């Protein structure tokens, strides 16, 4: 059996899966105390279950996201080496941010050596401020980690935890590397405590199978291993819903996935079972990071959104939420009240919901049913408009080769998959607003928990070989090797594959789900003065988001 758990903003869903069957699914309100919520959810789903039979469990939590959004981050010092470009002070983050002298160029050659005295001076200031955690980031450190490693070597004895920039991602983006390093450092203690406490609960419940956390790219990572990069577990909710769509539907063709919740509607595009990934990285709170994620968009329109009618008769649904729907004791009319009034939802105070719709109707000059119908129509139109812009933005992403320009593949969704509480009721309206067939998968109301449960481990490596410099570097795993002048793409691919699989196994993958694919592959001859001096090879290889082989649902 497999256990999946998704902590949402208002509700926490848990499912128990055997083969292709959902054996049990429960929903409980998400409480203030995350561990207590997890414990309660586990206890209620496991009552009467032989826990020894649970071979695997996965969690999508809001721990890191909430800590970032609510600014509950540990005080963290930063030491930065930059060199020419934008003034690094522009990216100052945390209470004690220091730029030291030292610079690498884009090839990784040292342009200015590190200045030890300024590093030690920064260290003293950070320590004086009573800070025990530090992040170290260098410009172009993914091309040569030497400066970051040198700083770590000088300062590591002064701090309880040190986070480095080059292992965050192989991607180029110095400001994002700074912010991601900062988040990894400042979430470290919180996440370590959480991981320890969850481990304790699971041990106590006699749950000994592999334990995973979900990441924003729709992949999982071993609970204990996640401590090395805690920011990577933030913002996993939208990914859980996309993986749920994949598990419950398969998403053949180009599918627009909509998850209609209470506060928001999250959207994503899945192409033949493969979610589209953001090439830069996810934004966590106000921080743009280098953490890979599924491209999702969150629209502030959901079942509990505020409905407003303007003086010109135009209606808006969202983006505000003002307490619960009228049917559940709230003060302001919401789409949920429309569903209750139309008899589509058999919950709450029906009389109160009806009065809310009647009030709305008098502003619109119609009866309660017609008003409720208008509300759902407007909600669907708002979603459709936002989805249109979302798809347009995906298609507007720049490309850099002639091949890509000429073989332009525009993404045009041909169907829509709707999940979340109101899914079956809103689907006909969305179908009309988008002009696309809509379907609702089974277990649409616990899809996120299913997604978390059956998502496989993902990993990525970025390899850059420079035969002029005589090195190949794979920053994600902190590896740099000497190579000779004959090092070529075939060798690069073999090395990347071996490294990627090794890495995936370390962070929790099983041998039967190591499906690798190349996502970027370029080789350039380096010419200096009409003479070839070397080859510059760039390769990205990933284990893309997918489902574990145990999930054998025939779709």
């Amino acid at each position, binding site marked *: 059996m497999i256990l999946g758990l998704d902590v949402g903003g208002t509700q926490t869903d848990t499912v128990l899966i055997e083969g292709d069957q959902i054996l049990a699914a429960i929903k409980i309100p998400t409480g203030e105390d995350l561990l207590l919520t997890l414990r309660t959810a586990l206890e209620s789903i496991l009552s009467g279950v032989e826990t020894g039979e649970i071979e695997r469990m996965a969690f999508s939590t809001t721990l890191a996201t909430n800590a970032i959004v609510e600014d509950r981050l540990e005080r963290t010092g930063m030491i930065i080496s930059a*060199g*020419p*470009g*934008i*003034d690094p002070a*522009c990216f100052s983050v945390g209470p004690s941010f220091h730029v030291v002298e030292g*610079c690498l*160029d*884009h*090839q990784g050659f040292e*342009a*200015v050596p590190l200045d030890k005295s300024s590093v030690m001076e920064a260290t003293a200031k950070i320590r004086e401020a009573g800070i025990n955690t530090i992040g170290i980031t260098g*410009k*172009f450190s993914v091309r040569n980690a030497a400066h970051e490693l040198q700083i770590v070597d000088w300062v590591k004895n002064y701090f309880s935890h040190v986070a480095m920039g080059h292992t965050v991602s192989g*991607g*180029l*983006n*110095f*400001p*994002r590397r700074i912010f991601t390093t900062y988040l990894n450092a400042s979430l470290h203690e919180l996440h370590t405590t959480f991981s320890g406490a969850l481990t304790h609960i699971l041990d106590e419940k006699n749950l000994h199978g592999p334990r995973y956390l979900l990441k924003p790219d729709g992949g999982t990572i071993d609970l204990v291993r996640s401590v090395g990069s805690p920011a990577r577990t933030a913002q996993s909710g939208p990914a859980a819903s996309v993986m749920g769509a994949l598990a419950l539907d398969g998403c053949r063709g180009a599918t627009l996935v909509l998850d209609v919740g209470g506060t928001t509607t999250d959207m994503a595009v899945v192409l033949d079972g493969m979610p589209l990934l953001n090439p*830069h990285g996810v934004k966590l709170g*106000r921080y*743009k990071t280098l953490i890979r994620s599924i491209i999702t968009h969150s629209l502030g329109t959901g079942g509990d959104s505020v409905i407003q009618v303007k003086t010109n008769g135009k209606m808006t649904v969202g983006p505000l939420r003002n307490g619960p729907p009228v049917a559940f004791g709230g003060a302001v009319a919401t789409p949920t009240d429309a569903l209750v009034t139309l008899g589509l939802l058999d919950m709450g105070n029906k009389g109160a919901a009806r009065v809310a719709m009647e009030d709305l109707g008098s502003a619109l000059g119609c009866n309660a049913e017609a008003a409720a119908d208008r509300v759902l129509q407007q909600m669907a139109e708002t979603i459709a408009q936002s989805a249109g812009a979302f798809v347009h933005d995906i298609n*507007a*992403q*720049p*490309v*850099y*080769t*002639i*091949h890509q*320009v*000429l073989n332009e593949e525009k993404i045009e969704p041909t169907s829509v998959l709707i999940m979340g509480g109101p899914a079956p009721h809103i689907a006909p309206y969305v179908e009309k607003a988008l002009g696309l067939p809509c379907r609702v998968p089974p277990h649409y109301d616990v899809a996120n928990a299913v997604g978390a449960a059956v998502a496989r481990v993902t990993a990525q490596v970025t390899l850059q070989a420079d035969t002029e410099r005589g090195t190949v570097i794979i920053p994600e795993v902190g590896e740099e090797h000497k190579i000779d002048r004959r090092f070529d793409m075939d060798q690069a691919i073999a090395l990347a594959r071996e490294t990627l699989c090794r890495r995936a196994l370390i962070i929790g993958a099983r041998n039967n789900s190591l499906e690798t694919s190349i996502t970027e592959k*370029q080789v*350039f*001859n*380096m*010419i200096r*003065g*009409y*003479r*070839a001096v070397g080859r*510059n090879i760039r390769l990205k290889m990933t284990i893309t988001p997918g489902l574990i082989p145990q999930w054998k649902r025939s779709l």
Partner: protein
Amino acid sequence: MISAQRKTGLVFFPAFDWAISPEHPEREERLLYTQDQVMEEGLLDIPGIVEYRVRPAAYEDIQRAHFCVPDESAVTTESHLISAGGCLVAADAVLKGEVESAFALVRPPGHHAMRVVHGNRGFCNINIEAVMIEYIRTHYGVRKVAIVDTDCHHGDGTQDIYWHDPNTLFISIHQDGRTLYPGSGFPNESGGPNAQGKTVNIPLPPQTGEKGFLYTLDELVMPLLEEFKPDIVINSAGQDNHFNDPITNMNFSARGYAILNKRLKPDIAVLEGGYAIENALPYVNVGIIMAMAGMDTSFVKEPNYEKDYRPQSRDVTLNIEQLVEALKDLFLRGGLKKKSYDEGEILERKRDIFYDTDGIQERQNEKIRCCSHCAGAFSISSTASTGQHIMGVHIPMEACPACRKIGLDWFQAGKKGAFRHVYLQDRDRGLYDVA
């Protein structure tokens, strides 16, 4: 967080799958390190800097600026169309008001491509600025355009295309043609009979540094622009004046380029040459993008700036001051002796043009109608060592009836001649006829 003071569009197209030949300076690798630097700086995350996706230009867009021999498909590849198309995307962004200015960071370049195109000259096949300018004129009704070409090589292609156009001010700042390809671009090249003084060449001595470029800009270029009052300013932003450039002898820097751009404030900048791909382009391009966006560029410099940049020598400074003074006399103080022509007089000139990249020899015979009402119709007959023998007739925008008539007459007569192809470029009617 930082943000752009001016909303700036960026069209980036490094053409990672195109080269003239594997070891040619115009090869796949050229913008690789620029891309690395732009990405690593995180410039595209800065609010107010918007990256646009390229699209290929259509043959129709090229036909407004060129006579391609025998046709567009023979002298262009996809990369040329996309590079020109990148400029059109930049133009749209600016003219639709989505951004205040835009930078087309594209390759291959275009400023050595003349109106008649038999092949590749100076790494260029089609003139991407001219294609863009004529697109802007057609689609946005813009009339007066100023082009400031800051590439190290004389922008002889752009000069050729706008030689007769009084509504285009073409200013080229470059290394003295006696010391560098293409060997032209002297002050006495100042425009055709209907556009006298609308071409301004500023040949700077080798080793001109930051001081000399900025002096020339402040003293000469800015006053010229002020006087001309263009509707739009285009910068052909070649980057080969750089002290690290391997094929030129100038002494400019990333910091200097950034300051130049800040003062010039072009509406659209277009990348031209620049072949110090590792140790100049990454920094110059970052500097230009930041300058366009109105950001602080004081931290932009080459890692070897302190070590290798030499301030301009006194001799060079004196030389430049004399040159600028002489050019001010000619172009700002009315010293240029404008020749007067009879209305309707037909002037002829013969020229030999060499296509260095493709090794083609071309002989041109041009006729222009002197006209005080419009830019004047002209015809070019051209014979090339490829065996081509063609004639192209150009009827300008806002053509007067007499020029329109003579243009059409030339085209009809040409069709009866021994030419292999005869082309008519009728700008007002948006027509390109091939016979």
